[in-house]
């Protein structure tokens, strides 16, 4: 009898390509989320004004940080959806194992993070164009366009890592909930509990510390390392924890 003996790499590739197509609607959601966030971003984050009898100057600072934050939420939810029973069952319609299923989900989330991060960063141009035409604002172009483009480029990289980090966190949390439904109750309680404990006179908030660990990192290299290692760790934990999970119950 002839048995097919596919390699793990080949099957991951097939599952990944299949998932790109099967989950195409996540990008439609992404567009919606980013447009909404962009709309909210037309509130200037800061502004200053001044002038004399002859001239009046008003400076507004706009940013697309909000778009990136919304994209991170999108990635978080997208990852949780990937861990649900339905999508796990659908993986097992075809050739797979639990590890292949998780790794191809990881590849899919990485792709989604790249798309999400880059598009989030690019909305900065859309914002400038709209402000120029509708707001009548004048966009102050930096003197050195090359260094500005480099900034946007690096900004995209950092945005990708932020989005990736959140997606892997979502994937990990989703996996925990699949293992035991009690996590769906416990995790939000822990989250909100941590949100309100400590601070002020007591020890610093745990969540603030975690937040600072990632998002207040001033060294780019260190941030990249922290983000990549944490994302890899979360995916590995998810693979390890879900390796005995039964499907099609």
């Amino acid at each position, binding site marked *: 009898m002839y048995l097919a003996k596919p390699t793990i790499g080949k*099957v991951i590739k097939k599952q990944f390509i*299949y998932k790109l197509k099967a989950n195409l609607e996540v990008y439609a959601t992404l567009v919606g989320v980013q447009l909404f966030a962009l709309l909210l971003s037309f509130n200037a984050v800061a502004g200053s004004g001044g002038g004399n009898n002859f001239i009046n100057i008003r400076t507004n600072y706009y940013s697309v940080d909000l778009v990136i934050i919304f994209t991170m939420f999108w990635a978080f939810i997208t990852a949780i959806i990937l861990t649900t029973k339905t999508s796990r*069952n*659908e993986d097992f319609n075809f*050739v797979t194992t639990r590890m292949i299923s998780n790794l191809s989900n990881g590849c899919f989330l990485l792709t989604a993070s790249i798309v999400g991060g880059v598009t989030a960063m690019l909305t900065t141009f859309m914002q400038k164009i709209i402000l120029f035409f509708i707001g009548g604002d004048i966009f102050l172009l930096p003197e050195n366009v090359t260094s500005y483009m480099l900034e946007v480029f690096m900004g995209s990289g950092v945005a990708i890592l932020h989005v990736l980090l959140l997606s892997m966190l979502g994937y990990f949390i989703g996996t925990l909930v699949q293992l035991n439904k009690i996590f769906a109750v416990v995790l939000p309680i822990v989250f909100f509990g941590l949100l309100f404990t400590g601070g002020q006179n007591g020890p610093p908030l745990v969540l603030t510390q975690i937040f600072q660990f990632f998002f207040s990192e001033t060294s780019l290299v260190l941030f990249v390392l922290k983000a990549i290692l944490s994302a890899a760790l979360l995916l590995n934990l998810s693979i390890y924890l879900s390796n005995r999970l039964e499907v099609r119950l």
Partner: protein
Amino acid sequence: MNIITFNHVTKEYKNKKAIDNLSFSIEENKITGIIGRNGAGKTTLLKIIAGFFEQSQGEVKVFDETPFNSITVSANCIFIDDQLSFPSTLNLGEILDATGKFYENWDTKLANGLFDYFNLDRHQSHEHLSKGMKSTFNVIIGLASRCPLTLFDEPTTGMDAAVRKDVYRALLKDYITKPRTILISSHHLQEIEDLLEDILLIKDGKAHLHLPVSDMKEYAIGIKGKASVLEKWLENRDILHKSNLGTDSLYVVVRNNFSTTELEKARVSGLILSQVNSSELSVYLTSKTKGGIDDVFSETYNW
């Protein structure tokens, strides 16, 4: 060569044993029917073979590998039931194409041929198909993927009689062109009887009987006659079923280990002997009580 081997396998869910110390093996290129009542453990059994579930105890070997998390088993085995669901973003045509990419032996020609014959439309979505159409589509996937091990769990749910007949015929024809190991679970033994070579009868998670269909026809014998005469014959016999016919007549089904002379004597003493067909027999073998549903009424109302 054995494709599937179960060695004292138990599967527990919350202290209830769905599969209980089950041992059997299935040879290459045979069509085996998994027969049993609702909740007997048929689906659990098939899902363990497919690697969806992990057994609690015992050893399972499929293609000489433990199926749970085995890439070889996954690549060479397909499990078809009416719970199959596909992403709503894909239409039927795209699902067929996607499936074809995963299975090496996929037969596009066969898939398209069956697809057209059963009047399916490539642009339809899977979730909006009727129950019977969904099952038909799933069977097409099961056949066209041509996996060395094909598992059908109640494949004909919701199909009308004509389609059921066609599906079974397609299955048999395809099996003849490309022999492979096929397991079918069904309530309708009658319908698949002609298709099967072997029967694995399951009762309460245990293998009750595993034998060729041809032997099943001679496994038991039905005897009808006066209760007084019949009682004498039934001493030390393995009674599978017993029901009253009128006030003093009985119909019993017993294990057929009579000699020819004994049977001749029975006929002379006025007993009517009859063959028990395999679907009738499987009902008796898997029933919890000897008298079937009649027992409930006789105990409740003292009939």
